[in-house]
């Protein structure tokens, strides 16, 4: 949370002659960060980020306290001056004190409840310095009494509220949890339906306060108000936070209550407010102080070993200086030869609980910039990297094969999910999606890739893109299966284009690859007639082919999309081919082509494996041409193979080659009824 602090106001408590910018630099380096310095006509305003653990610094005085500790440690001239009235005597000024009945139904809602009544109040505009400071801090001035509550909240960090005493029926306040369906009209004029178990105050029969967030309109201070209840509390921070969230209504007060206020700061804050009311609204104290204490600040003595401090800092910090820093921050300290025993001040008791917390306090004020910088000196761990290290190399290889990497959201819409054909029970669905566009964790990358081609299809005609990402499939009683996939889509490419690319990629992966026709088809993404299962080491690792028209129609894509999706988690789990030296043939080979006519149904891989099996002299078989022509006859194709005959002992003789070739022709005609073209 950020707060705005006018520097002139800060200087009321921080007595130093340093320039605003210098103060800001010191604060940023060792305390809450000054993110911006805004210049106004007569002043500077610090915009300060205060972290969630430091509600004590959500105030002008809190910042002054921090700055004073830092500046004093730096031997800069600085002094902290507390606001007046913190220790005011809270005795009634009138002989007939007003009565206020307070009933707290559940003490866990309100660890401390303080209130006091004021009489003789003259409602008027606040003095200029209060109005100016409020407006510089981003709060609108209303009248002297209401302004005091805001002023003290900004000054000391303790939110407070005032009621018109005469508007509280029967002078009775019951603090309780709200029931289902209760409503309150708050000071901003809005009627709010309260979630159950919100902390509220009721008078005789009406809700008069939405506790910790905003007061009720029915009991607000008006121009005619004479008697006032000043009201300072601590609340169960979790409840305030929950209500503020459910109502989407987070006021300055709520933001502070949510983080917890200093229980010991409640009475000083109330005193300060009374003091200001006396000064600016001629108020008189008209009741005894109501102070119902349910919980007190827990404080433990924390012992810090000096060796540990120095080990953390990487340098030696003098013990006296360490103790002095803690003292400047309000800690009580006791020094022994080896240790410092420290007791946190009330405003830090929730935050500082063990010796490491003390180390942080000392180190930051000592100055992180003073600590030496050195590289870690220990041993470098043994052991393997994850597959992700290899993925970086793979991505680069694919880039050099001419493809462009994209990264798309892993969360997809229900429409996209339906295209995948994955069963609902296998999907991973978000319980709290941001919008319906992002509702399911995707089980495949291919839909997103197709979407991207569709979005870019007017810009190019041969878009080639890929993505490496995890996909998600639910598993019973366990986290979803989250395998790393490689998805590729090629606009206007054919089956052999994508297949060749997959073969290239397996070359990069140093693994063999096989393609098998899918008999029992399982993927809804691919067209049945032009797709294949991809296998390596006899394990199925993906699918390749032309995307189904269902998906391309959905995205209104002209032309076809060739795609593949490979499971890298499985592939990297299988060992790569270890290459060993093969002697280079001493004698040149003989190379001859052979063409034959087959039935269209005969797969080329079967032809190749038959040829390979028939003869040892054939060392290499390449398919150089596949031709489908009407003159071949119905259902026929011509396949031309380039055969390399080779022998370690010498170039095969014409006779050896002829014998081998005859055998091949024989095998082909017997196995496939092929007719060899001569």
């Amino acid at each position: 949370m950020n707060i705005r602090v006018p520097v002139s106001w800060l200087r009321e408590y921080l007595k130093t002659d340093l320039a605003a910018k210098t103060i800001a630099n010191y604060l940023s380096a060792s305390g809450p960060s000054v993110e911006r310095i805004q210049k106004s006509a007569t002043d500077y305003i610090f915009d300060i980020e205060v972290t969630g653990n430091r509600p004590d610094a959500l105030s002008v005085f809190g910042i002054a306290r921090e700055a004073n500790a830092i500046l004093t440690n730096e031997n800069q001239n600085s002094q902290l001056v507390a606001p007046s009235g913190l220790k005011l005597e809270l005795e009634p000024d009138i002989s007939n004190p007003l009565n206020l009945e307070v009933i707290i139904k559940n003490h866990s809602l309100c660890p401390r409840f303080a209130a006091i009544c004021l009489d003789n109040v003259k409602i008027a505009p606040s003095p200029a310095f209060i109005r100016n400071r409020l407006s510089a801090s981003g709060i609108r001035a209303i009248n002297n009494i209401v302004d005091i509550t805001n002023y003290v909240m900004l000054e000391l960090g303790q939110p407070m509220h005032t009621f018109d005493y005469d508007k509280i029926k029967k002078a009775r306040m019951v603090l309780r949890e709200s029931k289902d369906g209760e409503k309150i009209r708050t000071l901003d004029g809005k009627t709010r339906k309260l979630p159950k178990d919100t902390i509220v105050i009721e008078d005789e029969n009406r809700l008069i306060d939405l506790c910790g967030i905003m007061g009720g309109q029915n009991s607000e201070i008006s121009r005619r108000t004479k008697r006032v209840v000043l009201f300072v509390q601590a609340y169960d921070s979790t409840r305030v936070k929950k209500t503020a969230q459910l109502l989407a209504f987070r006021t300055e007060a709520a933001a502070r209550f949510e983080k917890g206020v200093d229980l010991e700061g409640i009475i000083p804050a109330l005193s300060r407010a009374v003091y200001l009311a006396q000064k600016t609204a001629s108020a008189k104290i008209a009741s005894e102080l109501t102070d119902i204490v349910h919980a007190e600040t827990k404080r433990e003595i924390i012992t810090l070993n000096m060796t540990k401090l120095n080990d953390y800092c990487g340098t030696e910090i003098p013990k006296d200086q360490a103790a002095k820093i803690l003292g400047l921050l309000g800690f009580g300290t006791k020094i022994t030869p080896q240790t410092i025993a420290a007791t946190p001040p009330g405003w830090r008791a929730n935050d500082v609980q063990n010796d490491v917390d003390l180390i942080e306090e000392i180190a930051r004020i000592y100055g992180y910039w003073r600590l030496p910088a050195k590289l870690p000196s220990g041993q470098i761990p043994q052991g393997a990297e994850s597959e992700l290290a290899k993925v970086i190399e793979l991505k680069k290889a694919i880039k050099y094969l001419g493809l462009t990497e994209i990264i798309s959201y892993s969360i997809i819409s229900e429409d996209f999910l339906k295209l995948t054909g994955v069963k609902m029970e296998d999907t991973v669905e978000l319980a709290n999606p941001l919008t319906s566009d992002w509702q399911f964790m995707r089980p495949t990358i291919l839909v997103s890739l197709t979407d991207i081609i569709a979005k870019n299809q007017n810009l190019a005609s041969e878009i080639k893109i890929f993505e490496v990402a995890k996909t998600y499939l639910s598993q019973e009683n366990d986290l979803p299966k989250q395998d790393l996939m490689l998805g590729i889509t090629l606009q206007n490419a054919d089956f052999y284009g994508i297949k060749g690319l997959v073969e290239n990629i397996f070359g990069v992966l140093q693994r063999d690859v096989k393609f098998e026709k899918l008999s029992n088809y399982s993927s809804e993404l691919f067209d049945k007639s032009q797709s294949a299962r991809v296998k390596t080491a006899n394990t199925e690792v993906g699918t390749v082919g032309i995307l189904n028209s269902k998906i391309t129609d959905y995205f209104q894509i002209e032309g076809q999309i060739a795609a593949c999706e490979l499971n890298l988690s499985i592939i990297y789990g299988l060992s790569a081919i270890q290459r060993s030296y093969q002697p280079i043939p001493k004698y040149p080979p003989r190379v001859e082509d052979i063409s034959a006519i087959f039935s269209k149904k005969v797969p080329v891989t079967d032809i190749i494996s038959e040829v390979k099996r028939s003869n040892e002299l054939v060392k290499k078989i390449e398919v150089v041409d596949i031709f489908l022509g009407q003159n071949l006859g119905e259902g026929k194709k011509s396949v031309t193979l380039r055969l390399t005959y080779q022998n370690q002992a010498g170039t095969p003789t014409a006779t050896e080659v002829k014998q081998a070739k005859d055998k091949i022709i024989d095998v082909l005609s017997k196995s496939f009824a092929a007719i060899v073209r001569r």
Partner: protein
Amino acid sequence: MDTQIKKVLELARAKINSAKVVKDLDQAYIEIFGKDGLMTVLTKQLSNLPQKDRPKTGTLINQLKKEIEERLKKKRSSLTARRSLPSIDITAPGKKQEIGHLHLVSQAIEETVKIFSRLGFSLQSYPEVDWDWYAFGSLNMPKNHPARDDWETFFVKSEINPKYGSQVLTPHTSNGQVREMERVKIPPVRMLNISRCYRRQIDVSHTPMFHQFEGLLIDEDVSISHLKGTFDYFTTNFFGPSRTTRLRPHHFRFTEPSFEVDVTCGVCQGLGCRLCKAGWLELGGAGMVHPKVLSAGEIDPTRYKGFAFGWGIERTIAMKTNIPDIRFFYQNDIRFLEQF
């Protein structure tokens, strides 16, 4: 025998002369000198001759061999001789091989991993959909911590595990911390975890999915000084030697002390400008691993200490490339992707 020699010469000459390309010549060579080539057959016949005739015929065969080799060589030279080239316009475009592009995020990841791997950090991979325990509980985050709100973090529709809680989309890579401690068991630990992360927000500087980068080092002798040294090393290598870093106090539940790490602004060189905060740009968060987190990972906090750091990859890229809107990264317009 003489006639045979003459015949071989004739046949060989015919073969050599008819060669049109180098490959034909290679074939001719095989047919002449190969296993059952003309010369091989001829030479074999030498042993059939009477002893006295052999030296003479041998000499003739040798001469023949030399002559054929000479002819082969000549022919080869004539086939491979360079023709003179016509003059061309060398300013006309070349024929390029098609090369694609890596996504900016991948480029930054690669660069980052390279720098840290020189310091012995190794890349590990942990789930993106993880248990509440690893994402929050083990990281010293109380039940009511804002990050555990369903306003900030995505939850998965699933049964709640009695030990590990609900399933969440990791809002940071810190879920890798305790998982890495469990994997390694006995320090030293030097881990990098780079992963997609998810938060329920979208605006100019936030996308619901982004990439985070996490480093974790655990050892016996580890101090804030080592964290500073590591950051200086990274900054010099990633942003350049003119940039420096600073630590500012901050607060994270899983580190104590906690820091925000700033790097000097590259635009104004630390003097202060429109893009930075008084000369500094926020790089990321860091801190000394909280003793409770070490305990959650079953590492003895009285013996070991550690530091952890992390930042959003997109932010660091935006800092380097002046990309004004982080959402560009995931719109996947090819005109954007092809710029890098």
